[in-house]
């Protein structure tokens, strides 16, 4: 059997160049952006000649005039890898997705269709070039020889059966990718090339390096035979649809989404899986409105806008109708801001939920339905405003976060005693406090450091009792620090004709009340935080 291996050297860099071919002509350094430190992770030959090194900081690399710096792009890497797989599949159905930068495909039987092996190799190189990639191809009678030689020799290399060791002999043993520990041992032994390794007596090697050594020895001789691990693209459970005409309206989009979801759910069903999360990704048509000239328009076109959302599901789901409803709700809330030209739906697969009913327990809300309900509420109130509020561990007044609402896993205690709804660790009574969000601006008058009069939202009142001030400040290392001084004030309001109308934030209208007001030192103003019940 004949195998062809395609290897794309300097893959990270090529993935970026593929999207911006003009970069071919200059020195290029790729940085991994993890602020505040950015380091060079890949360079091209020109940059290397200029003195740029992998591991340098962005600042260091910037000092080399003529070197362009671009961020690493996982999206482009993924696309480049997909393209690599596509090239493989365009020739053979049997391919192995060996690494991000390398694949192997079976080419046996293709000679009548595509010519001799050399020609097949050339055709693969051609297709690589068409996809914006440069690479090496090696054809051999075993998989690993093809892979190793593709990494070691440029262009197309065809190895006839029996010639494997001859080709491999010139390569460094590092090309066999030995584990670090073994590589160190080989280094100490002075074993530099595959030929050096192949010369060692295999039995002695086995005594010293075990099966790992034997394996490397066979690899070094080009005698390692293994089966291809056929790539199964379905593992990703991704469905994609590129549209000839961009879609703008929700209804036709729903139709297309429904189709994709049906396919996705059918595949999940066939594998007895469900979707634990659904990711929807739209490539949006670029807008030319703001483009300065046509060149700019083309440049923009190459980098379309993206709409990327993920829907977490409480339990693995494979009901396409339910998923469609959820998707529609999400799209109604957050519609994409441009027509859609490509749709990608991807599901994170998981085992579906199985529940055995209990005769003696009241049935609880179906999680799928609950998720739908929450999505509907979120559609009305806005995302981030639905869930279970919980306090955060901070002195920042009024700070809280919304946690995702979940049905408790353990509905009952192990002894079967149901907890009382009002059972709390702290049974002490505490005063209720209504928080005004946002806080209401106020005006205060003071006498000898103590508030005497208060006015807010057209209301005026005298302070009959005051407690405070209480000072808090913090998060001084963040962009949004705070510094406040709070007072609890008992206020007697003066009756005015329009008071009732103005108290829109307050459900009840007593003549007096205890309010919490604060001075925000950073905003330099007084505000009403809320009222005690």
């Amino acid at each position: 059997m004949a195998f062809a291996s395609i290897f794309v050297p300097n893959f990270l860099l090529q993935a970026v160049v593929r999207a911006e071919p003009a970069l071919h002509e200059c020195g290029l350094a790729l940085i991994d952006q993890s602020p505040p430190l950015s380091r060079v992770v890949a360079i091209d030959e020109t940059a290397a000649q200029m003195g740029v090194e992998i591991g340098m900081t962005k600042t260091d690399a910037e000092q080399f005039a003529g070197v362009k710096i671009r961020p690493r792009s996982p999206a482009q890497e993924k696309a480049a890898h997909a393209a690599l797989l596509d090239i493989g599949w365009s020739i053979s159905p049997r391919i192995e997705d060996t690494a991000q930068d390398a694949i192997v495909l079976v080419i046996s039987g293709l000679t009548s269709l595509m010519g001799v092996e050399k020609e097949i190799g050339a055709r693969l190189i051609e297709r690589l070039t068409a996809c914006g990639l440069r690479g090496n191809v090696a054809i051999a009678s075993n998989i690993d020889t093809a892979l190793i030689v593709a990494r070691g020799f440029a262009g197309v290399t065809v190895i006839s059966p029996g010639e494997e060791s001859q080709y491999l002999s010139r390569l460094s043993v590092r090309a066999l990718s030995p584990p670090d520990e073994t590589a160190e041992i080989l280094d100490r032994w002075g074993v530099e090339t595959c030929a050096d390794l192949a010369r060692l007596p295999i039995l002695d090697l086995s005594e010293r390096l075990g099966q790992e050594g034997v394996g490397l020895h066979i690899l070094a001789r080009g005698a390692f035979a293994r089966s291809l691990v056929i790539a199964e693209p379905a593992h990703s459970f991704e469905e994609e649809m590129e549209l000839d005409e961009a879609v703008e309206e929700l209804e036709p989009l729903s139709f297309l989404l429904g189709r994709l979801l049906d396919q996705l759910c059918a595949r999940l069903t066939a594998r007895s899986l469900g979707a634990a999360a659904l990711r929807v990704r739209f490539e949006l048509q670029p807008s030319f409105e703001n483009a300065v000239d046509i060149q700019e328009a083309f440049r923009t076109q190459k980098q379309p806008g993206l709409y990327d959302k993920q829907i977490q599901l409480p339990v693995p789901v494979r009901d396409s109708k339910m998923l469609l409803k959820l998707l529609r709700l999400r799209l109604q809330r957050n519609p994409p801001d441009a027509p859609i030209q490509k749709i990608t739906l991807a599901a994170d697969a998981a085992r579906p939920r199985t529940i055995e009913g209990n005769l003696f327990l009241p049935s609880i809300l179906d999680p799928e339905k609950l998720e739908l309900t929450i999505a509907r509420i979120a559609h009305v109130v806005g995302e981030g405003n639905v869930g279970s509020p919980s306090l955060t561990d901070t002195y920042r007044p009024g700070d809280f976060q919304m946690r995702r609402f979940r049905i408790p896993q353990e509905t009952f205690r192990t002894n079967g005693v149901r907890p009382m709804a009002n059972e709390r660790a702290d049974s002490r009574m505490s005063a209720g406090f209504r928080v005004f969000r946002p806080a209401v601006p106020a005006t205060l008058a003071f006498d000898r450091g103590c508030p005497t009069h208060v006015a807010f939202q057209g209301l005026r009142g005298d302070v009959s009792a005051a407690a405070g001030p209480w000072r808090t400040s913090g998060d001084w290392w963040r962009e949004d620090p705070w510094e406040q001084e709070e007072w609890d004030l008992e206020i007697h309001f003066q009756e005015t004709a329009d008071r009732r109308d103005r108290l829109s934030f307050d459900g009840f209208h007593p003549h007096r009340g205890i309010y919490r007001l604060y001075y925000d030192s950073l905003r330099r103003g007084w505000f009403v935080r809320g009222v005690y019940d």
Partner: protein
Amino acid sequence: MYIELHARSAFSFLEGASVPEELVQVCAERGMPAMALLDRDGVYGSPRFHGAAKKHSLRAHVGAEVTSVAEWRYPLLVESRAGYQNLCRLLTQMKLRAKKGEGKIRAEEMAEMSGGLICLTGGQEGPLVHALTEGGIERGLKSVEQLCRTFGRENVYVELQRHFCREEEARNQAAVQIARRLKLPLLATNGVSFACPQQREVLDVFTCIRRHQTLSTAGRLLSANSERRFKAHEEMSQLFFDLPEALANTEILSSRLQFTLNDLGYQFPVYPVPNGESQMHFLRQRTLDGMIHNYGSENERARQQIDRELALIEKLDLAGYFLIVWDIVRFCREQNILVQGRGSAANSAVCYSLGITAVDPVGMDLLFERFLSEERGEWPDIDLDLPSGDQRERAIQYVYERYGKRGAAMTANVITYRRRSAAREIGKALELDPETIDRLTALVGSWEYKDPSDTLERHFRDAGLDLQHRRIRKFLELCHAVQDLPRHLGQHSGGMVVCQGQLDSVVPLEPAAMAGRVVVQWDKEDCADMGIVKIDLLGLGMMAVLEESLETIRKCHGDEIDLGHLPQEDSAVYTALQNADTVGMFQIESRAQMSCLPRLQPRCFYDIVVQVAIIRPGPIVGNMVHPYLKRRQDREPPEYFHPSLEPILKRTLGVPLFQEQLLRMAMIAAGFTGGEAEELRRAMGFKRSEARMKEIEVKLRRGMTAKGIIGETQEQIVQSITSFALYGFPESHAASFALIAYASAWLKCHYLAAFTAAMLNHQPMGFYRPATLVKDAQRHGLKFKPIDVTRSEWECRLEKISEKFAVRVGMRYIKGLRQETALEIVRQRGIHSFRSIEDLKQRVPEIQKHELTALAEAGALNFLSNQRGFHRRDALWQVERAARRPGPLLEIPEATPSTDRVGCGSPATEPSPLRRMSDEERLVADFRGTGITVGPHPMAYRRAEMKKLGIRTAIDLTKLPDGTHVQVAGAVIARQRPGTAKGFVFLSLEDETGIANAILTPQLFAQDHTTVVHNQFLLIEGTLQNQENAVSVKAQRIKPLMISRAETPSHDFH
């Protein structure tokens, strides 16, 4: 008037953000008359607090927060000396039974030792808040009643703190109720944790470090606001307007607290003299005995000096102190531990006669007042140099034994935040990623010299960090803010304090990290400030080298060497010194020393004293080196700042080189008294000296003006004196070091093998790495034998080869080999020799694979085979097999005698299919595995090529005239950028012929920074400078050279 009675300083270690001096400063600025410092579980900051308060005429109350077993803390204030002693004992008791940095006090212990102490009910961490939280007001009431039972009703104050927090106010109301019910006084405090509001950020970061959190995750562990700052009377009276008695009580309580650290009650122990003699009589006898031995009975000058000294010792009642030091020295001599006193003690003829020091102060005309003066009112300072390692430990343990565990302790060393530690810990708190932190930590504080652009800001930009980022900006600010704040308590390298009676009633004791050691809570300067006598038992690597050399010489050569009686005018020694051939010699081996030696041309012992003292930052910055050298070479006549100074400066040709000369100059030119001169000395040696020096400078100028010394002369004298603030040697100290320098030089010249072996056995020490020591010794004709498991021991030893001694390198040089493994190898081969690698593996079963590999790679297993030409790779081949455990079927039963196992089914010594290492590979393996090579220098392999390129050897340079354009190449063995050299960089390049020196201008260094710092081999092109045989190359161009991949080590002064 409000008085703050509950403040913490940074000596609460990560619970306070200001040093005591800052607290005192704000207290004084607000016009408050007193303050109390209550640090957590200690009185660590009290001496500094006391000293600062004294300057501002404030009363410094002493106290501490003491942790109870229930985790809350008793805030305790010391009322009387008895109270202070109780506090010290309490702290000692809880600390000594716990792990370092921990400890809790039990209620019954507190009850037992509560006398003289006043207890507050505390703030957030106090007993009352704890009780209120646990069980409300009733529990709180009980808790305060319990305090009343423990301390007495009149000694308990109900404490109120107001930091504008709701919960705190609720607790305050409960506290007021309790105080009313129990009729206890209220006391307002602010629970101060920092001096000014900005330091709250430092405290927050400290909280994160202490609680292993980040600022984002610490939540409410951080401060709610910045109110724990120091507050003055006005602010506090506004806060407590409703409870004026709480404020008034602070003043009443403050007036009750009579104890200050002036009243420490420290007494030096009495030396037990035999036959009911007085200590003084006993000391006089021992001194006279020694005098006769050292000076003979006819030396009237010595007798007069000794009488004068003894009279002063008697007057100051210091006989006990001298006898105790003499006793330690006597113990060392009896135990064959090399010992020598240094420091100002070398100015004393009594110390010389007692054998404490080895320098003759009478012969050298040293100033006794520098050691002891009546005016000073403080203990003399005697430092003893001992061999580092076990020998010094024996001496320390002797002191513990003699004075009891609570009668002697080491002084502490307060570890403070430096650039690197600050960057690391603050980076973590701010959640910078580990890689960034590593990079920053490596970047900050690298070279000793800092040019104006060498700021943290620049380091940050270099590291690719955006200073516009708020978090990064905060990082930078915090790094600055925490500099020099205490981090934790360490142990001083050798300072010991002893006490008559219980030391733990003078200062709390703590366990040190090292087993069997106890430390006091104060550092050596604090101990000195508090009048506690300190004896420094310092470990000196060279003393250990000398000791081992003598032992080796005795064993191998059969010669008995007495270091006290070495030939004084040895020509070999002075020739070596004059030729700067001083690698390995104590204090005179550095590049700077070597460049000075050919110009100074030492001809007698005093020249060595000068040589040791002259290459110090003080003389260098004071521009004293060149004038001295010129005058010594008769190129200019001696000149004196002022005729009155001629007697002082005559023997150093008008140039002040020693501290004593500076002190005498101050006494004569500015009319300083002995005490004032001593103040000047302390300012010169003191690390917090800048402000002191300024004060003294004013006094100096005033004194000189009064004596009519004005204008340029005054400037010159002030300049000489202030430069010494940067560090200079006292003459006595230089003389003590010169003795050791001479001894090391003598041993190197006459017993090179023994000296080199000892040097190699006591690394790291000195200026050069072992690789350089080996190459230098080889150039002097010494042979080295490689590491060999059949012959080498753990240490390097001598082997006799055809009537000459060679050094057999010890197994200690195998990186990664444990000492116990090596010792077992030696033991096993003593039983019978190893027959193969497998045999070795079986008989030393604890040997690990990486150890065997390391031995094989270094060639130490080559001699296990009888095969001719068995090489390192053969051994590595065998090791890989021997180290791999066979399966259970093939495993040999444990009971099988090892001799039967040899070769059991395996041709263990057969050659391998691997090729022999090339020269280059051997070099790489040598340096990687041992850090040295006993084979040729890497440059030797490439000499022919170098020659073709016109590259000179190091030895060639010495023969060329000044100004020649040269190229020189070698392995970089030292890179220096001294703080005194204005940004110049000094490189030492080693080749097979010797060491060449190169000087880089700051501009060239900036231009070729990466080349200089990152390359092991360099080619330097430039102009040869040959100034009186001090040869160096002034670099014009630098290129990296690829000579070898071997990782040759370099000593870089970062």
